């Protein structure tokens, strides 16, 4: 396991180098004036871009520029985002907890429902529950998040006025930013409980349900499918027949024998799930006007806030690469065949 871990970790710097090179090369299509915001530390510098261009070698050859920029980002200097009106590093700190809270709220039910429904669908193949799971899967793939999100908003906000967009109501917003509220973690659901304010918890939950449901619906499809097909494969294997022949209870055969092995491909494909969630966050946050990384990235892209775009891309790539790494390690951990290769 240790050597696998080392080999896998050794790849990370190369991926990081590649990702930053690609992004920086893309930016070369823009004029030095537009790229200057990447190096700005204080908004007052925005009015004196020429000196920024001079200082950071923006008219020099690519390797010099890249090296200058790389040294900057390694110490956490990511420039100034005009759409967020704050330095990029601060913007990431401000938006990330919101996105993480949303993704997690969607991820847990996705995992539970997806695995449960996928297993049931395989066990009761071609029965009503299986048909239902297929319906969920095929519509989940085909209904774009921006359509589902709008319809949910029309019904639960427009018609019933119970689940509003945004992250909190005006009263909650005022209270959260007052001296009576301590932001321990940045996760609103948790902070509200730690502060003993149930009404804030309720307020935050009401704002989370619709975007989380949108993300859930689009990502549960993948999990249902993978669990179902890998479960179908397992329950026809010899060891399952042996277990049954020995007289093991059917529920134990399914839950203890077959499902444990069937979940291995589910772990490998959890990176796909992560792509789905991260990508889904971009659109979902925009529809629901939810102040996270995704909405910030889209705003930055619409208004050509280069520092914001780069910050958004770097955060997404980092999360994605680390998520993949976690999936690979988990996979090697549960399946000894992988780490021995």
């Amino acid at each position, binding site marked *: 396991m240790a050597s696998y871990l080392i080999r896998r970790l050794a790849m990370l710097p*190369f*991926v990081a180098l*590649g*990702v930053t*090179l*690609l*992004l920086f090369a*893309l*930016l070369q*299509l*823009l004029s030095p004036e537009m790229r200057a915001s990447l190096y700005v530390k204080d908004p007052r510098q925005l009015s004196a871009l020429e000196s920024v261009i001079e200082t950071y070698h923006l008219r020099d050859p690519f390797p010099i520029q890249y090296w200058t920029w790389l040294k900057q980002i390694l110490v956490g200097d990511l420039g100034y985002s005009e759409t967020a009106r704050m330095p990029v590093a601060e913007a990431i700190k401000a938006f990330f907890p919101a996105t993480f809270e949303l993704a997690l709220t969607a991820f847990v039910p996705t995992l539970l429902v997806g695995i449960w429904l996928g297993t049931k669908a395989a066990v009761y193949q071609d029965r009503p529950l299986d048909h239902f799971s297929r319906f969920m899967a*095929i*519509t989940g*793939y*085909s*209904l*774009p*998040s*921006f*359509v589902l999100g*709008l*319809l949910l*908003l*029309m*019904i639960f*906000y*427009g*018609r019933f*006025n119970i689940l509003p967009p945004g992250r909190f109501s005006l009263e909650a917003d005022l209270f959260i930013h007052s001296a009576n509220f301590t932001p321990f973690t940045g996760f609103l659901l948790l902070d509200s409980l730690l502060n003993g304010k149930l009404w804030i918890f309720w307020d935050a939950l009401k704002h989370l349900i619709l975007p989380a449901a949108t993300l859930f619906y689009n990502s549960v499809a993948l999990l249902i499918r993978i669990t179902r*097909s890998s479960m*179908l*494969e397992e329950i026809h294997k010899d060891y399952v027949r042996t277990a049954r022949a020995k007289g093991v209870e059917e529920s134990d055969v399914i839950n203890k024998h077959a499902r444990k092995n069937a979940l291995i491909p589910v772990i490998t494909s959890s990176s796909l799930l992560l*792509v789905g969630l*991260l*990508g889904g966050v*971009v*659109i979902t946050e*925009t*529809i629901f006007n939810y102040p996270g990384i995704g909405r910030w*990235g*889209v705003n*930055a*892209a*619409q208004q*050509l806030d280069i520092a914001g*775009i780069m910050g*958004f*891309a770097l955060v*997404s*790539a980092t999360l*994605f*690469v680390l998520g993949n790494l976690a999936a690979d390690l988990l996979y090697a951990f549960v399946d000894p065949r992988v780490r021995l290769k």
Partner: protein
Amino acid sequence: MLKRLRKKPLSLIGLGLIVFFALVALLAPLLAPMAPNARDPYLIPQDGYTSDPTPPSSKHWFGTTEQQYDLYYGIIWGTRTAFKIGLTIISMALLVGITLGSLAGYYGGWLDEVLMRFTDIILAFPAIVLAVVIVAVLGPSLSMVVLAIALVAWPSYARLLRADILSVKQREFVLASRALGATDFWILTRRVIPNAIFPVLVVASLDIGSVVIMAAALSFLGLGAPMGYADWGQLISLSRNWILGTPQNPLQFWYTAVIPGGTIFLFVLGWNLLGDAFRDILDPRQK
């Protein structure tokens, strides 16, 4: 293969949907004739400039969006846009993917290593994130959306083809050609690629549904088609301001979201139903 498709009623529904949309796209000039003085058929005619959408009527079958763009016209010509976008993205991605994937698989060595590490880097981003970044840098427009999605889509085709070529190039008929003194180029284009390309072509053609969703998403985010262009994603984004109706009739503007949203759903559903059937046929484990 067609025989096995016929056994799956759902795949026939999928095929039916795609044929239906293809007919709509082909017959667009008959179904929704251009206004006599219009120059570009993809620009939706406006009936006045009032901001509120109007419900379906005999004059506007599907109603109008804000600023009076006719939804029916937009949906019909938007079908052409969807096919154009989908086919262009997939052919561009396939062209790059096949070229680089076959070079990497056939020649191996440092070329393979460099190309595969490059695909690793592109695949280190969630596709939509990289597409958003590329479109933002190149300048938002529909053609840049197409280019951006093709740029993020090719690596998976390149990898798929490379893996197939690795096994095909070991087969006897390739070794025989080489023994007979055929050039690398001839072996690659006449023997190796034709025997390895089929799965990539199937996978790629069934991806049309998902690339159309991604293009619509970018248009929805305001990075794609300009205002008034017949594009489904753009039509859906026009409904964002009309989530709330009046207190008497809260769902007053339902048609602005349901009609374009339903259209794109059926289009993608068609591709996915067909894709499922093909996946079952191609995957021997699922028998």
